[in-house]
């Protein structure tokens, strides 16, 4: 018996091209006669443009053309927001590709230069003169809703972009009758995604055919094609979007940005290919940011620790315009999961989306769920303090008991499967929790401050049922599709609609197919990222690619198996119901020697010399998979920190993640996803934060000022798992791309607060910099 390929940590087939420098990312593409685009961006957060003089730039060496908003206004439609949540009074203000009258954040485009090379384009930018009349600025989402705050858009009074309320049970009554309540104000600071590859686009418009090819560093080429069609007016069938190698996204490459639309505009105007690639400084102001909530949250409970209610009032900064998926993040992906793994009967989420003079905010790894997990796990710890209970025991008391097929929670969603004690006990066991607490007590006697935190989480991902997508205002479907094509030689291409960019699905999808059909994994190639040669798909985000796209691959494989069975029966002169399949062979039941391998079937189906009556030639199947529900991975994370009160330094000494994403296709890749997610979440807790001053200038405008975690700042991550299959997914799998980032921020935060408890510190904002720690200790 050979070991099963599903579940095997084989090394990735993507890697040879990546470790040798042969992979081609968007900025690596060079087309004949290609010109270069550079964008002049507003240095003001809010200002009226009174004049733009491009004459000197137009005369600059190598310059081909200079355009401003007056050129694009009549040609390009505004950039649409694709997630307008119903019943929220959303103000979908126009987001122009280039500002022609008013700029609303630092980084908004005001002019573009096209030149023969990048240096010449950048030189010419400096020769453009723009006269601005500054307007008042607001950057804090709560402040932006107060009376008298500067207004961004005429049609959005009080800067209110939307107002979303979700309620289940009777929350107000639960609080009125509560024996104990705890509350907090949490600043979910703004984060910068920092995909290592900056954004880039190559646009090539062939005027004779009216056809556009757009190489774009995107997580969802099919959505990019759709939106490009809306913005340019070109038919979708005339647009080809190619996502070549994509260097990380973390949500920042979901949106369709004005910038690639400007590249498209330039190519269409000039009839030649153009390339635009942002600098990192541009990336920081002009690619989306994440989080940015001001949250007022409270929890109600009985004295025995039973949680009875949870409610929030959240001001979620949206930036100056609504980005592609922006409004869905602090609402659907945030509020609906407030119960996490706990049985909480009464919940109310009251959430305002707010315009501010800042870079637009959209999905960033975890997207809404880290913000939900944080407030829940923070409140549980505050409640434990209030009640004098061990925070682990309080969690244990409130966890939803094990369920295998469906559990309804207060806010109306139905979790698929859960066994929350399983990872909790495994984690406690692994770290020897009791011993850790004893060590902590010992160290405290010597004025050494160790902090320990244990978090339980359950999150919602694997987006998702298309009917639900429609009901919650997502401007598209959330199914995936796959085409499995066998060649006569028995080799296979799988064409998928979704678009991995580092998550390794070229490997894991080959493992799925190999497992389903017994084809050697090396005989399978996964094709993705090009709208002209892949079937429709909605992209890689929301931990959905493996869960939804992988299921489509499995279903297509099963169709192949069905057809193969029919052809094998015909070739073996047996009845179809007498044919069994195992390990890549179709055989007559009871006579394993009478068989046809899947390769035999592929050959015979492709040459079609001897097909049964009515069976079509070829061995190819296409499957569309629309999941009946989301998936709900869960787990327990443990962080251990040491805090030095003399200088405020925090050392993250230990991090343990026990996650349950169902059966793992490739444990090595699963672990890699957890490692990366945990460190990104650690970044939010300890180091990262996009800081604006009152005039709307981004003070953390480069990698020198914004602290992305580095190798020496983090420990090895201890990754364990439990396996609870999803009842509805054809492979039983759940998503794992975001769990690390969802759980780690609050776990590390709670660990630091635990360390500081003997020092009387009860309240700190993230990131927990040494300066903040030291001030809190020494100045109260």
């Amino acid at each position, binding site marked *: 018996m050979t070991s099963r390929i599903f579940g095997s940590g084989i090394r990735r087939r993507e890697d040879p091209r990546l470790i040798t*420098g042969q992979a081609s*990312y968007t900025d690596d593409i060079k087309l004949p006669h290609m010109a270069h685009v550079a964008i002049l961006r507003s240095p003001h957060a809010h200002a009226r443009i009174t004049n733009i003089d491009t004459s000197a730039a137009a005369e600059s060496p190598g310059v081909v053309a200079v355009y401003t908003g007056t050129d694009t206004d009549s040609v390009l439609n505004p950039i649409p927001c694709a997630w307008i949540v119903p019943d929220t009074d959303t103000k979908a203000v126009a987001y122009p590709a280039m500002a022609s009258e008013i700029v609303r954040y630092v980084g908004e485009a005001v002019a573009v230069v096209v030149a023969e090379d*990048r240096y010449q384009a950048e030189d010419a930018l400096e020769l453009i003169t723009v006269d601005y009349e500054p307007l008042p600025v607001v950057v804090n989402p709560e402040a932006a809703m107060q009376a008298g705050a500067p207004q961004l858009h005429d049609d959005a009074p009080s800067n209110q972009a939307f107002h979303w309320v979700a309620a289940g049970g009777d929350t107000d009554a639960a609080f009125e009758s509560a024996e104990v309540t705890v509350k907090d104000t949490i600043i979910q600071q703004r984060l910068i995604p920092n995909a*290592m*590859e900056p954004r880039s686009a190559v646009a090539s418009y062939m005027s004779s055919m009216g056809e556009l090819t757009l190489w774009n560093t995107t997580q969802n080429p099919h959505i990019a094609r759709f939106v490009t069609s809306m913005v340019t007016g070109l038919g979708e069938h005339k647009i080809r979007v190619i996502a070549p190698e*994509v260097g990380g996204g973390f949500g920042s490459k979901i949106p369709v940005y004005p910038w690639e639309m400007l590249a498209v505009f330039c190519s269409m105007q000039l009839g030649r290919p153009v390339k635009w690639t942002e600098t990192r400084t541009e990336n920081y102001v002009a690619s989306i940011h994440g989080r940015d909530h001001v949250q007022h949250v409270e929890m109600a409970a009985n004295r025995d620790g039973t949680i009875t209610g949870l409610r929030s009032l959240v001001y979620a900064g949206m930036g100056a315009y609504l980005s592609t998926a922006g409004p869905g993040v602090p609402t659907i992906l945030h509020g609906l999961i407030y119960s996490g793994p706990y049985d909480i009967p009464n919940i109310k989420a009251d959430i305002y989306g707010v315009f501010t003079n800042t870079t637009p905010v959209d999905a960033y790894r975890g997207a809404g769920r880290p913000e939900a997990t944080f407030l829940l796990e923070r409140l549980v710890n505050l409640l434990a303090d209030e009640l004098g209970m061990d925070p682990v025991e309080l969690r244990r008391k409130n966890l939803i008991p094990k369920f295998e097929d469906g559990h309804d929670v207060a806010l109306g969603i139905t979790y698929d499967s859960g066994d929350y004690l399983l990872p909790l006990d495994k984690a406690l066991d692994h770290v020897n929790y009791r011993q850790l607490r004893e060590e902590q007590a010992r160290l405290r006697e010597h004025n050494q401050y160790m902090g320990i935190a244990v978090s339980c989480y359950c999150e919602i991902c694997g987006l998702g049922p298309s009917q639900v997508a429609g009901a919650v205002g997502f401007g598209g479907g959330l199914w995936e599709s796959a085409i499995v094509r066998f060649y006569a030689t028995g080799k296979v291409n799988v064409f998928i609609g979704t678009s991995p960019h580092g998550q390794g699905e070229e490997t894991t999808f080959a493992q799925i197919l190999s497992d389903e059909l017994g084809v050697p994994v090396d005989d399978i190639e996964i094709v993705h990222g090009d709208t002209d040669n892949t079937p429709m798909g909605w992209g890689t985000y929301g931990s959905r690619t493996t869960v939804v796209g992988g299921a489509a691959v499995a279903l297509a494989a099963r169709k192949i198996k069905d057809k193969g069975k029919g052809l094998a029966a015909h070739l073996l002169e047996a009845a179809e119901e007498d044919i069994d399949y195992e390990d890549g062979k179709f055989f007559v039941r009871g006579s394993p020697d009478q068989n046809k391998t899947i390769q035999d079937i592929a050959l015979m189906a492709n040459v079609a010399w001897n097909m049964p009556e009515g069976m079509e030639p070829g061995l190819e199947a296409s499957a569309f998979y629309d999941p009946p529900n989301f998936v709900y991975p869960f787990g327990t994370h443990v962080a251990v920190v040491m805090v030095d009160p003399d200088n405020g330094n925090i050392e993250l000494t230990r991090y343990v993640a026990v996650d349950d994403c169902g059966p793992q296709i490739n444990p090595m890749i699963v672990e890699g996803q957890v490692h990366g997610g945990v460190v990104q979440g650690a970044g939010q807790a300890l180091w990262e934060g996009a800081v604006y001053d009152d005039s709307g200038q981004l003070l953390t405008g480069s990698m020198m000022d914004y602290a992305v975690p*580095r190798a020496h700042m983090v420990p090895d991550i201890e990754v364990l798992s439990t396996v609870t299959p999803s009842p509805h997914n054809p492979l039983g799998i759940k998503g794992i791309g975001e769990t690390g980032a969802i759980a780690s921020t609050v776990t590390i935060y709670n660990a630091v607060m635990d360390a500081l408890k003997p020092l009387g510190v009860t309240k700190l904002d993230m990131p927990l910099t040494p300066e903040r720690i030291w001030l809190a200790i020494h100045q109260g």
Partner: protein
Amino acid sequence: MAKTSIQVTVNGKLRQAEVDSRMLLVHYIREELELTGTKIGCDTSQCGACVVLMNGSSIKSCTAFAVQADGAEITTIEGLATDGNLHPLQEAFWNNHGLQCGYCTSGMILASVELLERNPHPTAEEVRSGLQGNLCRCTGYHNIVKSVLAAAEAKGG
């Protein structure tokens, strides 16, 4: 713009060019030599995606001028494998899942080459310290450290 004549040996091959004196080394490598395995991640020498070896030392090619490489020997990621065999660090990154999106990988591997030249048997802590000039957003560094330690081991640790 004044042109300057340079001679650079890149991956063992002598190259001659007339370059603008302001041209960055990374642009010379990527645009003129079309060796696009060297990446640009930040333009300010913070991220290390552009690391190449110049006379055996790792440097950030986004913060050097092409003219500074005149007379030098440069190794890029494309020059690391020999006779069709992957360098032990390339092999180790592959075996240990030391990369995800791959964008930081060229710089990460080349920085690790120099690290192991200087310290053939590093501890995990020394690897972490030695790679602090290279950012990765995908891996959390765990498997990168593992890869470098594995390569050190493979080279006869």
